[in-house]
């Protein structure tokens, strides 16, 4: 009887433990999501900042044009994985990266402006 109680309490502890662990996991996923939702690239002085941004799979990256001149965000691969419309001052463009990989991009109006998103 004693033994079964202890097993029960162990089981309970295990359940609690699992639950606790689960909560912890959930918490970390939530905070990761919070992080990804604020992943930003700023366009200032004809350059992307940061030039290289590393994000987890599933992250959404938002570009904001803070220049007085319009810019675009266009991936350089042939299939143009992402391509913004023209962003005037303070306009934003977002893209969610669902696959790991390296995504070089540029401003199609000012092609000297280049950047890269690394999705891990």
């Amino acid at each position: 009887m004693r033994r079964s109680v202890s097993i029960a309490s162990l089981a309970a502890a295990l359940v609690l433990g699992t639950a606790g662990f689960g909560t912890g996991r959930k918490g970390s996923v939530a905070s990761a999501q919070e992080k990804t939702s604020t992943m930003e690239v700023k366009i200032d002085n004809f350059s992307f900042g940061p030039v290289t941004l590393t994000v987890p799979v599933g992250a959404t990256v938002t570009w904001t044009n803070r220049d007085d001149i319009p810019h675009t965000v266009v991936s350089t691969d042939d299939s143009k994985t992402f391509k913004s419309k023209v962003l005037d001052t303070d306009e934003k463009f977002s893209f969610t990266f669902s696959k790991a990989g390296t995504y070089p991009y540029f401003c199609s109006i000012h092609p000297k402006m280049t950047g890269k998103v690394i999705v891990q």
Partner: protein
Amino acid sequence: MFEKKKDELLHDHNHDGVDRRGFLKCMAWAGTGALCVMKGGVLNSYSLSRISETSTADMMGELSFVQISDSHMGFNKPANPDVAGTLKAAVDKINALSGAPEFMLHTGDISHLSKPEEFDTVDQILKSATPKDVFYVPGEHDVLNDDGKQFLERYGKGSKGAGWYSFDKKGVHFIGLINVMNLKAGGLGTLGHDQLEWLEDDVRHLTHSTPIVVFAHIPLWSVYPEWGWGTEDSNQALAYLKKFGSVTVLNGHIHQTMQKVEGNVTFHTAASTAFPQPQPGKADSPGPMKVPAEQLRSVLGITDVNYIRGQHALAVVDSSLA
């Protein structure tokens, strides 16, 4: 310390024999304007502030036209909240020139965001100019979102490919080139294979003594590649023009006047009618330069070009809007 810094800037970035000091000499014209007379490939320039010392004969010719550029209609930031007003001032300046110019060239960035109403406003303002014909090439701001479809519909009638064309006026052969399409990451302006082939064919039949005027938006010489101020394959285009005694290249894009002579070719960039941009490398970026309101019109302007038959000479006059 300052002197040392200055010297550091004096290297030849582009390996084209023009150092920074040379650039700055060219830059001295910005704002004040200059009269330039080319004779046999050699360009003479006179500051507009001393234009009274220049003979009228040098300024008059059998053909005169005006270049305007970079109107950026729709731009409304502090560098110039009234780009329509400064374009109107440019038209007033054109209408006041002695000896009415025969036509105008607009070397691109007519609009700021390729919006139909921006093009409409420019068309409306230019209607009040004395010269009725306007020949356009697009800037990168005119071909946003639709790969230049709207531009071609509005201005590209009778043109080839992405909008390139040529025409003849009083013995001068004019060639409008497009170098703002299909730009590649990390690269400069591009003419592309098809256009280069067309160009080679276009000038094949011309005699060597035919004066050539090429106009395109992005400079066809390496002004400052770090800021994208150049064209990848311009050397190929210029190779097709080597046989001619007189070639003048008129560009916009960099919102300041600059000149350079290389063999038979004189390169010239025009001021913007909208807002100035910094001298190469003189700022963090080539973004609009804010100048005190009372100085703005002195850094905007128009270019008046005269062709004098028999001298193979083109006189290029920059006027500020002040």
